[in-house]
């Protein structure tokens, strides 16, 4: 096996040093009744070339663009990734290193993550971003737990227009804690109905996603003010990070903590993971942030260097008193986002986000013209809800055969929205792709 470098001669000379005869004797301290003496029932080893065949067969059994025209968003977005990003990201010095516990040997990772934190904080208009988390859902759950810790109150309120799967992850995290999670309904304009807040007291946080699950842009400023009137923390979430290249960022609208998903920033969809949880706050709450933080410092000679910082919040020092049990970040995903944002740049991200917006508006306009109902008239980014005529399931299946995936059926998530679909357009969809979809829907 080419991954195992030992020759028979190596093995016997090493065994000799240990004074034993065979490899099995190494396990002499295992009690006999703990030993498994059979053979593992696994497929026999493949050669590298056989593996290539096997995996390429599996991977071909997946519907992906450009062969399929996929109008699915809902927390996972199709964006172009420059070759330079994929290429740089495969540098094995980045790929095969561990968490940077020894800063002398990991300045590369540390500087890159420090830069990522700064880029993420600037994108969101916040003061501090962590070194990253598992995904948008867990970042939101951590943001809400953080709000509970800061305010010492036990109840959080989340908008029903936060991604339904994120809300389920929040439920899972909150279940054993005894903290309460309540939901705010939505208005027929496709944004959160916050009137119920007036009746609620003793809240740790109010959480709003914008653009929300329907793609609609929430009025964060007003919602933030309402939240602050209740002396609760304003937590915002997002699934489409690119939106803030164009729209007002959550920090400028009063967000105290932001937790969302950065997959849009140069990370392939990969069936949903690995992803990039982005978590940011004001400096005021920095010491309550879970997970890793990289800081800039000077060495004894006055040279700039980077280290993991404020580690006393963390599990390996504080054990059960830590701010969370997280001991890693999704470092390589954060690195991908940093490389992507560096490549797109300040001028580029504006243009790219605007192009995304314009393309989605084009499809919206065309569908409307074709007689399809656009459910909500609130402005949207990249995604929007449409109501297709009843019986559209058949058309949907028919379109799948034509290699068009006409959005996400909303009924499983919002039972009141039968026949409603969430459509997504990014810069990867051409005018022709969109025209084809409209033609098919019309017929």
């Amino acid at each position, binding site marked *: 096996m080419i991954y195992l470098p030992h020759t028979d001669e190596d093995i016997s000379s090493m065994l000799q*040093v240990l004074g034993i005869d065979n490899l099995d004797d190494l396990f002499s301290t295992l009690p006999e009744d703990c030993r498994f003496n059979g053979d593992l029932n696994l497929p026999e080893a493949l050669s590298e070339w056989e593996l290539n065949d096997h995996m390429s067969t599996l991977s071909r059994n997946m519907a992906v663009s450009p062969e399929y025209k996929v109008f699915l968003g809902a927390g*996972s977005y199709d964006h172009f990734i420059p070759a330079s990003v994929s290429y740089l990201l495969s540098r094995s*010095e980045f790929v*095969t290193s561990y*968490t940077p516990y020894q800063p002398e040997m990991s*300045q590369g990772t540390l500087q890159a993550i420090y830069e990522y934190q700064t880029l993420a904080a600037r994108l969101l208009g916040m003061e501090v971003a962590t070194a990253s988390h598992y995904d948008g859902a867990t970042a939101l759950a951590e943001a809400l737990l953080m709000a509970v810790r800061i305010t010492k109150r036990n109840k959080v309120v989340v908008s029903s227009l936060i991604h339904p799967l994120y809300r389920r992850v929040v439920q899972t995290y909150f279940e054993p804690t005894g903290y309460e999670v309540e939901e705010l309904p939505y208005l027929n304009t496709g944004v959160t109905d916050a009137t119920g807040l007036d009746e609620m007291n003793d809240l740790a946080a109010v959480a709003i996603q914008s653009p929300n699950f329907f793609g609609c842009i929430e009025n964060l400023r007003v919602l933030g003010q309402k939240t602050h009137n209740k002396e609760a923390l304003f937590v915002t979430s997002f699934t489409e990070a690119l939106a803030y290249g164009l729209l007002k960022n959550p920090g400028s609208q009063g967000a105290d903590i932001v937790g969302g998903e950065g997959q849009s920033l140069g990370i392939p969809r*990969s069936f949903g993971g690995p992803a990039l949880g982005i978590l940011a706050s004001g400096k005021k709450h920095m010491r309550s942030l879970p997970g890793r933080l990289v800081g800039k410092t000077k060495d004894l000679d006055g040279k700039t260097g980077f280290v993991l910082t404020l580690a006393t919040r963390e599990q390996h020092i504080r054990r059960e008193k830590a701010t969370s049990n997280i001991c890693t970040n999704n470092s390589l995903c954060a690195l991908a986002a940093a490389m992507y944002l560096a490549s797109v740049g300040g001028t580029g991200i504006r243009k790219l986000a605007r192009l995304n917006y314009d*393309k989605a508006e084009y499809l919206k306009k065309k569908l409307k013209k074709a007689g399809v109902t656009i459910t909500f008239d609130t402005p949207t980014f990249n995604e929007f809800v449409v109501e297709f005529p009843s019986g559209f399931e058949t058309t949907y299946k028919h379109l799948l055969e034509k290699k068009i995936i006409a959005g996400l059926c909303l009924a499983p998530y919002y039972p009141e929205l039968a026949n409603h679909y969430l459509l997504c357009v990014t810069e990867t969809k051409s*005018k022709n792709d969109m025209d084809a979809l409209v033609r098919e829907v019309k017929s």
Partner: protein
Amino acid sequence: MKEALGTTGLLLNEPLLWEKGKKGRCGFSLPRRDVEPAFLDQELIGEGPDFPDLSEVDVVRHYTRLAQWNFGVDTGMYPLGSCTMKYSPKTNEKQASLPGFTGAHPLLPSGLSQGSLKMMFEFEQYLNEITGMHATTLQPAAGAHGELTGMLIINAFHKKQGYQRSKIIIPDTAHGTNPASVSLCGFRPVSVTSNEQGILSVESIAEIMDPDTAGIMVTNPNTLGLFEENIQKIAEIVHGKGGLVYCDGANMNAVMGMVKMGDIGIDVMQLNLHKTFSTPHGGGGPGSGPVSVAKHLEPFLPVPRVIEENGAYILAEDYPDSIGKISAFHGALGVVIKAYSYIRRMGPENLKKASQLAVLNANYIKEMLKGTLHLPYDRPCMHECVFSDKHQAAQKIATLDMAKRLMDYGFHPPTVYFPLVVPGAIMVEPTETESKEDIDQFVETFKAIANEACE
């Protein structure tokens, strides 16, 4: 001694991103604009993020230089104890980057995602076989996330029994994440000390296990690199009082094909694919921490579950006792593909051999260095061995000094000052992918450093 692999380091002055570039540059090929600009309310538009503008060359040089400033397994030996820094085969990277996998949307209809679903289904079966457990979820995104998932399952199990318990027993040789995972679930960790042999005694558990204790969380092999020999009797005691046994499987690399955790009383465990199954650590992630459970805990696994129905694979949601969702989608599938490729390339015999050679390498280092460094537990170890700086104390040389000096010689240092039960701990885990020559050079280097300490 052979010439050292390292020097006192490669230093680069690479400015921060925003100290580079010039307004108006771009390193991204903007897609063709084939639609007209649409109306957008000015009220909604922000100022745009304050990012630098860089050319593609600027970006490529920046990150190439940063990469050169980093040390990885591909650069040299990285014997971090408890981290299993084994070689990450390159074919795994290639498979994970196939367009059918990278381009797949997580909410594709199952009929259009049979490739990934089949891979997930088979991989769960492989992990069931390796662990001797009954069912597996791939949703947890990292080892600590798997621990949390396991604790949530234990919590849900007791709730279903109608009596919520408040404590979890955690040995002093546990990973630091263990007590944090436990308290995140509302349990109170109760610490128990290991005996003079470095393992748990049956008596110590019998003494504290009571009907208010939900279970025990054991790292096995433990962080001293020792197999918990009394695990079966401990499991009997815990089960006898209605508790469950969680095994932190981060150290599974020692016992693949040698021990099946499901056969020795374990109810639930996590595996760290970035340790045992060779996926790269990526400077701190992404990892993947699947959780495997015994039959009585299967109803509590996260949803959706991949199941096979009439030769096709589907995602099933209908498990009323499930703890729910622990990730937005299906977990770190891009990482799972690499671990799947590893298992397929290795096959059953080589997986077992990998564990044997990992244990051989660790014991060889223990034997070769035990005169040079103090060895607190002088008995056969598993995949890692733990020394201390006791012999060097007279010269006022501490673990940290030796660790930093190792870098000058071209090695990444071992894990230091952990586990906490050994003061000044030096925890060495070579893994099976280091050759005898590299290990000999590591040993020689450590001896040279110890000699320097005497000078």
